[in-house]
């Protein structure tokens, strides 16, 4: 508990230091006079925004899109990755299509998606999903490969079926990789949810950001940026918390427990 407090304290100090650097850079430093507003005015704008219900509504929509897409990406990506990792046939059959999809960015397919789904929250969810499921599948497959062969052989020697082995041995072994994948994907999901609003007309903070940009309202723009940063932190914290609970047995988190 004490170390946890210490950790948060040091983290807060880091944030404060970063804000100071920002303030100095934007007022007297190399970014003075650039489109970067000062930290204080951005914070003021953010505080001002938090008093409006529109901002909370937009935030809720964006978070819902990001989380929705992320959850679907996990639900699709993890089984896909596990399939690829456990079955050579699945791996070879999906390799070309997946490798092909990997480098195609959401912004390129955005108009096509807008075409099919319209400028709706559903479109945002789809883009988030599209932008993160392959990465999750890739890491999950690597995690499956990381299963200790002895653990796998143990399951086989006890006559555990394929499905049971996957569920009880392989998936827990792959969890640390999946955790990493989710932590890598979470902020990306948030960004894609915003970009979906920004470029594709979907609802949420993307729209707010777009308006601030069209209107040249930098303070508001960075007010939203701060909100997004905080959301990123919260999502990160949540996924780390979940991981710590699920992976308390793993050396990565064991030290924190003992």
């Amino acid at each position, binding site marked *: 508990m004490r170390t946890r407090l210490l950790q948060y304290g040091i983290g807060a100090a880091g944030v404060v230091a970063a804000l100071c650097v920002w303030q100095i850079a934007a007022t007297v430093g190399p970014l003075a006079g650039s489109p970067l507003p000062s930290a204080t005015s951005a914070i003021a704008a953010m505080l001002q925004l938090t008093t409006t219900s529109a901002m909370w509504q937009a935030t809720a929509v964006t978070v819902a899109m990001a989380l929705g897409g992320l959850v679907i990406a996990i639900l699709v990506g993890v089984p896909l990755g596990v399939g690829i990792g456990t079955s050579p046939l699945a791996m070879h059959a999906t390799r070309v299509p997946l490798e092909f999809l990997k480098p195609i960015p959401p912004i390129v397919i955005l108009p096509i998606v807008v075409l099919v789904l319209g400028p709706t929250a559903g479109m945002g969810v789809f883009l988030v999903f599209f932008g993160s499921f392959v990465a999750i599948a890739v890491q999950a497959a690597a995690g499956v490969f990381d299963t200790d062969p*002895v653990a796998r052989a143990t399951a086989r*020697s006890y006559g555990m079926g394929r499905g*049971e082995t996957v569920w009880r041995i392989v998936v827990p072994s792959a969890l640390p990789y999946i955790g990493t994948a989710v932590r890598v994907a979470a902020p990306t999901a948030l960004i894609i949810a915003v970009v979906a609003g920004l470029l594709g007309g979907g609802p949420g903070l993307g729209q707010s950001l777009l308006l601030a940009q069209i209107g040249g309202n930098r303070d508001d723009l960075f007010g939203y940026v701060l909100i997004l940063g905080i959301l990123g932190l919260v999502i990160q914290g949540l996924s780390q918390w979940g991981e710590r609970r699920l992976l308390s047995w793993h050396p990565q988190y064991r030290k924190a427990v003992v």
Partner: protein
Amino acid sequence: MIAQTATEAPVRLNVQGLAKTYDTKKGSVPVIADLTFDVRVGEVACIVGPSGIGKTTLLKCLTGLQGLSSGVAMIDGRPIDGPPKEMALVFQEYTRSLMPWLTVEKNVRLPLKHLHLPKGEREDRISAALAAVGLTGAEAKYPWQLSGGMQQRVAIARAIAYRPEVLVMDEPFASVDAQTRFELEDLCLKIRDEFGMTIVVVTHDIDEAVYLSDRVIVLGERPARVTRTLDIDFTDRDQLRTRALPEFAELRTEILELIRRAH
């Protein structure tokens, strides 16, 4: 009680001309040349031999975890081509065979799930197995919170709770103290009698081999062959009395000599 003179009992495991070669980048390494032996129902067979001769490899072939290069291994007359469901293996690398994300109790429960036992029986088996290896009280610990010997005993408890018809163990008592080892040896004999289990044990402790076995299979040469099979028929084994028998000392010396020569 199964008759100790098990010659009349049917053959459970049958190995004929088993050979195994590992293919590595640097060419193939023949490990086992040609093994032939069998183990009857209700027998305890010990496999002994120098380190690195191929005992673990043999067990992996026997439990269907690895394919053979030639020959055949059979259980009840069926060729083994995958882990047969009536068998269980206690791995030499016991630490790695425990799931680090499961507590001791859940590790033991793991293979029982698919047996679809009535709940009461499952819980009974788990607690009885843990008690038998002296781990009552450690149920809620994780493997990495246990000492080496305790981990090894969890692996044994898991196998015992599974109640396989054929129990195969690879140096199962290597990390436990002398007293615990005696107790576990007797436990082996007890479950053999109680459930009519067939037990195959790899061990480096010659005394243990002699004490436990109805049959000792000595491996030697590289690639490995059976250099000798010894049938042992002590009745009513007892740690103090049996070990004090003159035949015990004789067998012991004979096997030691065989292993020395195999070096």
